[in-house]
């Protein structure tokens, strides 16, 4: 049967869902509605290779327009401002109306903004999309001392890039460690050392009291009364799911759109995937919302299968990475529920991994090392986690013993 399938949100989850639907359904109309006037593109390079000029805009697109044309997937640049779930219609700002049989919401997430009591709002920059990355890249060319507010993945990746561009970088973090929301302190400290070795200044445990501007220079007053002078400010203080459009509807929201393990929302024929979805994970037996490349891709693919009628549970073990300087940091599973921690390796040149175990099974692991050094072990760890394997702790802790010995075939 021919259906109208609309994908609201032109990011990674949306494009992967669209192509997966087409693989399973050659007849239905598939239309992606994107707010940015760009085909879906990869965001990870924006804070790294794009700022460093190692990747250009044209290198970022997931697929060319020809791929979409060949697969008969439409892409339209439009902003939707109203949804009528009962009559299955979307209304655009330009009065266009879109009817759907199935709807996938993949609107992603948006940056939290600093609350400032003066009119410097437009002076603080954030990085999520290509346009913002272009602006930052242009402005920093004549700035020297740059302050990053927020010591999470995005802030630290920018800090790493700016340092490589010979800028003086200061990172201000409110918490008592970097990347505190998801990264264990042991790993965060290793990453912090690398930033310091490269000349970046890391300030922890400090809150911003006030930001003022004098003669083109910003003054950041911290809660210990210290004052930081800086030429430019970038903030990366977390994100929130993009759900404003659904706030006065019947769609169940709770830190994003609540979905089950099949990407189904509380409304029939409406699905959600990627950053915007607070989904049920059958392995961890709880809901979670993830903001990562792998999740956006795999969750989009899973939603695509379900929309096309191929009932598929989402069981992917979370995985994410961050590249800073010559380090590659990787995280798999969940590192917040454990009764034992096991360390593998103690030299960042060979990779250091911390495993988080509960009842002798791995629930999550986090590692960091020179690029390439932790990926294989982290990947094997994902497999061990997924298979709920009881692990030999001797093998886990001894870097000379290969982890793939633990995989039961």
């Amino acid at each position, binding site marked *: 049967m021919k259906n109208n399938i609309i994908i609201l949100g032109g990011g990674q989850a949306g494009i*992967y869902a669209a192509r997966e639907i087409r693989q399973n359904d050659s007849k239905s109309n598939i239309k992606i509605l994107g707010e940015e006037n760009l085909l879906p593109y*990869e965001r990870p390079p924006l804070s790294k290779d794009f700022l460093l000029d190692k990747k250009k805009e044209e290198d970022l697109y997931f*697929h060319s327009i020809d791929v979409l044309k060949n697969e008969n997937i439409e892409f339209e640049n439009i902003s939707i401002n109203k949804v009528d779930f009962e009559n299955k219609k979307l209304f655009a700002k330009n009065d266009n109306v879109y009817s759907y049989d199935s709807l996938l919401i993949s609107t992603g997430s948006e940056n939290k903004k600093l609350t400032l009591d003066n009119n410097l709002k437009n002076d603080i920059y954030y990085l999520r999309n290509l346009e913002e990355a272009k602006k930052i890249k242009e402005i920093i060319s004549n700035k020297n001392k740059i302050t990053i507010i927020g010591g999470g993945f995005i802030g630290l990746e920018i800090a790493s890039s700016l340092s490589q561009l010979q800028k003086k970088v200061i990172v201000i973090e409110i918490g008592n460690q970097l990347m505190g929301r998801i990264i264990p302190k042991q790993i965060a400290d290793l990453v912090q050392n690398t930033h310091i070795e490269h000349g970046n200044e890391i300030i922890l445990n400090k809150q911003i009291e006030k930001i003022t501007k004098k003669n083109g220079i910003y003054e950041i007053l911290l809660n210990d009364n210290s004052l930081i002078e800086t030429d430019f400010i970038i903030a990366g203080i977390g994100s929130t799911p993009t759900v404003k459009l659904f706030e006065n509807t019947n769609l169940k929201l709770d830190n994003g759109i609540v979905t089950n393990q099949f990407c189904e929302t509380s409304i029939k024929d409406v699905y959600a995937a990627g950053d915007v979805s607070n989904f049920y994970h059958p392995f961890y037996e709880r809901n979670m919302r993830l903001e990562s*490349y*792998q999740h956006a*891709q795999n969750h989009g693919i899973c939603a695509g299968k379900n929309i096309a009628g191929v009932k598929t549970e989402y069981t992917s073990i979370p*995985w994410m*990475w961050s*590249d800073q300087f010559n380090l*590659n940091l990787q995280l798999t599973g969940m590192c917040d529920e454990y009764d034992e921690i096991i360390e593998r390796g103690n030299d960042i040149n060979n990779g250091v991994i911390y495993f988080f175990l509960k009842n002798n099974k791995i629930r999550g692991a986090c590692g960091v090392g020179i*690029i*390439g*050094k*932790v*990926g*294989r072990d982290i*990947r*094997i760890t994902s497999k061990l986690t997924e298979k709920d394997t009881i692990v030999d702790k001797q093998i886990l802790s001894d870097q000379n013993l290969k982890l*793939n010995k633990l995989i039961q075939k």
Partner: protein
Amino acid sequence: MSEENWIEVGSTDSIEEEDLIRFDHQDKTFCVYKLTDGFYATDGICTHEAVHLEDGLVMDDEIECPMHQGIFNIKSGEALSPPACEDLKTYPVKVDNDKIFIKID
């Protein structure tokens, strides 16, 4: 097929089964694998981002990039899982007197 294009990589016992070694020749770099049914070779650098596959995971005839988990079939080079979408180049391999050779074009 001219003989001089066959380049010696090393001895057959230099690679464990279901594993790989890196092999550099002139300005090119390769991965040479030992699978259950023999030896195989591919380009060394992932087609997604410039990362060497030498630290990747070999499993069930597949190599997975250690950085962003793109997966390739070792025998055909086919890109099997995003973010990799461009195939990996493969090279003929032969074993002679317990030595592995790959044919570089």
